[in-house]
């Protein structure tokens, strides 16, 4: 027990006595994350503002007088340029070059066709042309082609039938303010609940990765591991001391990241998740916190064991970093799978190592995980971590693996 305590203390001291390491392990990733998210959010916001403030340039070919009058009455905010059929090629080139955003092409004799329409006759077609590669053009298409032309169509229809209400059989939720029935607690953590399992699993692994490879492979490489191996401490105590310290370091770093994320996410991501920030607030019950805490300890234990196992078989930190990368990629993919999977997971999913822990974390935040599923995941995660720990202890006893 003394050996575990001393090794644990030394590894913690190695990190916490070094201000540069404390900054680079715990704070730099948070600062980078906040900076990146803020920049992305700012850029998106700027882009939206820019598109919103942009006055669309719209070519209108064969513009009917009624459309011109409609535009005058409705005071639409875009610059329209009238062209005839022969100007279409130039207009299309301007769209391609980004000089104009949209072409609305009315057919010849549009008003006659609309005014003199009889059942069975061909319905006149208004064509629009835009460039989806250009943001201004895309926005003009969505706003004008969908909005202005639809409003114009309604105006013409009203002229044809007199009272539009006659064409309305029923409305949907026109004055139903209570249409949303949801559990506020569940709803409050929806967005964060979708992102947290992804970020936590990645951050737990990433937090342990750099330190873990140096802690074992680095010590082998520098020859400092041998000094521990000739001390009277059991090999298992050395392994446990190192894995526990790795768990603690990765746990602390993830905790800092998660706190930073929960605190900063509403500020950083407002423009990314829509107008409201309800989905970014999170309220956890005591039971949820306890379940999450125990699960995070188990995940940190498993990840630390995986990294330690990989490191113990590597001859150098560089080699360990290379070996650990595929495991990190696997964790990334599993996190993404959990983030974007819809529908209820099957019972079998809770037996898949790594994937089950991300699923259960998502389930705890969304309050849709059973105690059986939680128990299976927790026990399996701890058991696999324990087995890996046994393999590491065995490897520590091998002179070939330890390179002594």
């Amino acid at each position, binding site marked *: 027990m003394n050996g575990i305590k001393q090794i644990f203390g030394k590894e913690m001291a190695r990190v916490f006595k070094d201000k540069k390491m404390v900054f680079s392990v715990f704070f730099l990733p948070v600062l980078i994350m906040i900076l990146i998210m803020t920049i992305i959010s700012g850029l998106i916001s700027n882009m939206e503002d820019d598109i919103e403030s942009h006055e669309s340039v719209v070519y209108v070919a064969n513009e009917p007088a009624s459309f011109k009058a409609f535009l005058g009455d409705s005071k639409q905010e875009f610059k329209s340029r009238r062209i005839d059929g022969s100007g279409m090629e130039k207009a299309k080139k301007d769209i391609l070059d980004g000089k104009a955003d949209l072409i609305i092409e009315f057919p010849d004799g549009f008003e006659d066709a609309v005014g003199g329409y009889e059942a069975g006759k061909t319905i006149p077609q208004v064509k629009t042309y835009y460039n989806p590669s250009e943001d201004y053009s895309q926005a003009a298409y969505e706003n004008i082609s969908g909005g202005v032309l639809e409003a114009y169509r309604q105006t013409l229809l009203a002229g044809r039938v007199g009272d539009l209400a006659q064409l309305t059989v029923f409305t949907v939720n026109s004055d139903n303010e209570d249409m949303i029935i949801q559990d506020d607690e569940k709803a409050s953590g929806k967005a964060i609940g979708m992102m947290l399992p992804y970020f936590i699993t990645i951050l737990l692994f990433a937090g342990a990765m750099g330190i873990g490879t140096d802690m074992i492979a680095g010590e082998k490489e*520098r020859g400092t591991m041998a000094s521990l191996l000739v001390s009277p401490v059991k090999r298992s105590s050395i392994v446990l001391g190192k894995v526990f310290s790795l768990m603690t370091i990765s746990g602390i770093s993830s905790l800092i990241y998660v706190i930073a994320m929960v605190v900063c996410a509403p500020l950083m991501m407002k423009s990314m998740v829509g107008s409201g920030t309800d989905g970014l607030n999170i309220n956890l019950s005591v039971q949820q916190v306890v379940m999450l805490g125990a699960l995070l300890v188990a995940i940190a234990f498993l990840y630390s064991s995986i990294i330690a196992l990989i490191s113990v078989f590597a001859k150098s930190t560089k080699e360990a970093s290379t070996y650990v990368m595929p495991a990190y990629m696997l964790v990334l993919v599993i996190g993404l799978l959990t983030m974007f999977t819809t529908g209820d997971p099957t019972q079998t999913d809770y037996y898949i190592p790594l994937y089950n822990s991300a699923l259960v974390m998502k389930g705890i935040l969304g309050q849709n995980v059973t105690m059986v599923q939680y128990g299976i995941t927790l026990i399996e995660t701890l058991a696999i971590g324990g087995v890996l720990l046994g393999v590491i202890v065995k490897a520590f006893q091998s002179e070939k693996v330890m390179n002594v």
Partner: protein
Amino acid sequence: MIEIKNLTKIYKLNKKQMLESKTKNPMKTAVDNLTLDAHEGEIYGLLGPNGAGKTTTLRCIATLIKPTEGEIYVGGHEVQKEPEAVRESIGFLTSDIKLDEQFDVDYMFGFFGRLHNVPQDVLAKRKEELFTYFGIKDFAHKQIKELSTGMKQKAAIAVSLVHNPDIVIFDEPTNGLDIITARSVTDYLRKLRDDGKLVIVSTHIMSEAEKLCDRIGVIIEGNKVAEGTLAELLKMTGTDDLEDAFFELYKERKGEL
């Protein structure tokens, strides 16, 4: 205090090592049927050229590697059956074993003291004694990476002796040291011997073995080819100094130089 019975250590070479050793045989016998006894109150020297098997023998004693065959008893404890008890009773130092350079000497001394369960008051006394003797006090709070080779070696020696072990095993202890530091190390080893400890050193420096060791075991190609005091070795080989004695034994074993 140390009893080695028919120690054999065979390494399995990988392809790269076979290429480097220019051999097609994947099995390399580093130590071959070596038997040795060393007792308290003596400095026993393992003398031999590079690759003779000195370090391998010392590593087997220190439980870093396992013997392929044979038995080793350290203070009555068999190395494979009671490795922790063996490690408790020895202070082991080799050039491949280094202190974590991110820490200072003071921290490392305390850390290894705690690993050896040395009580705090005893630890403080040991620190005072060893730091004073090796002149470590001046750089005790400097990070080890900032120290010179000599300072690092002094620090490593002090740390390896933190628990006041009965058996001290040093592999080439003066290697790379300046003459003054080397002298302070050999003087301290003599002091340990005088205090009743068993000191085992490996060396390929004839003058060091001649002056320092009470008994010398000459190892060539994993075999102990001779053992005795300096006088006994000189008499055995009919030579006047250890260097000549060693070459006589080497020629006898290898046929030529």
